[in-house]
């Protein structure tokens, strides 16, 4: 899977374009576990029709393999990326 990195404390936005009819059901997973929407995890369809997962205020433990799984009556498929959360940049004086 492709690798992406974000800085600790920032938001990570995952966007995935999905097609299929009937409209597929989408499940976002991290390391195999389904993600439920909550205070730090927003799940929505954005204005351009991309399925979006937003992880707010990333922590080190948000690093891992993220999967967007789509299924409808005709089948299922998924896309995956690896996220790593880097520690905040150290300032040199």
């Amino acid at each position, binding site marked *: 899977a492709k690798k992406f990195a974000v800085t600790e404390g920032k938001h990570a936005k995952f966007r995935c374009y999905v097609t299929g009819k009937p409209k597929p059901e989408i499940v976002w997973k991290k390391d195999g576990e389904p993600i439920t929407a909550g205070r730090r995890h927003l799940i929505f369809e954005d204005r351009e029709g991309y399925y979006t997962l937003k992880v707010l205020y990333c922590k080190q433990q948000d690093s891992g393999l993220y999967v967007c799984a*789509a299924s409808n009556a005709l089948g299922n498929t998924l896309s995956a990326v690896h996220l790593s959360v880097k520690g905040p940049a150290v300032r040199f004086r």
Partner: protein
Amino acid sequence: EIEGAPGAPLDVCCQEANKDYVIVTWKPPAMDRGSSILGYFVDRCEVGTTHWAQCNDTPIKFARFPVTGLIEGRSYIFRVRAVNKCGMSHPSRVSEPVAAMDPADRARKGTSAPWTGQIIVTEEEPVEGEVPGKPHDLTVTEATRNYVVLSWKPPGERGHEGVMYYVEKCVSGTDSWQRVNTEIPVKSPRFALFDLAEGKSYCFRVRCCNAAGVGEPSEPTEATVVGDKLDIPSAPGR
């Protein structure tokens, strides 16, 4: 056959199908067998199953009803029964099947297995307090003694991500707003309300919410009286 029960309702049709509700309409039976019709019951059945479920608990007087609680993407057929003081009619002929989906989704013809593109990850700077703005153009699109249908437009750009809605009602002349969907906010910009007190007049307003919080309410609607401008459909030939 119950002695004196009305004939079956006619021409059951579906209008305004979307993923939140389907508005079912019909015509009164040709025969009311001498006593007037007290109302109707609408039944639904998911295509491919044989299970008929009754949609309304109390009889509907007006020959039009928004059926809610449908599963998005599934297809349904509907039938209607009429009731008078002697009893219930046979069910009508069933409607054409209709899918609980938004017109834009229906327009994309055919079926296809899902396909997912590459996931693109971007880093975003946290912005404090992205509470969404007000929804606008809130209107009452239908009002009868059984239900009211509202629709509105989403807020502007500010904090629009993951926006959902809370609907509030208020008896006209008072200032006590009550949240209607207390449990779960709705995702689409429309709502069908039931269980309003007949003869009372209500105003409605809508608030947006997202992870950051609940926004300011929209402008309230004009007062809407619960009762039928559209009363019991008159029997044919009258």
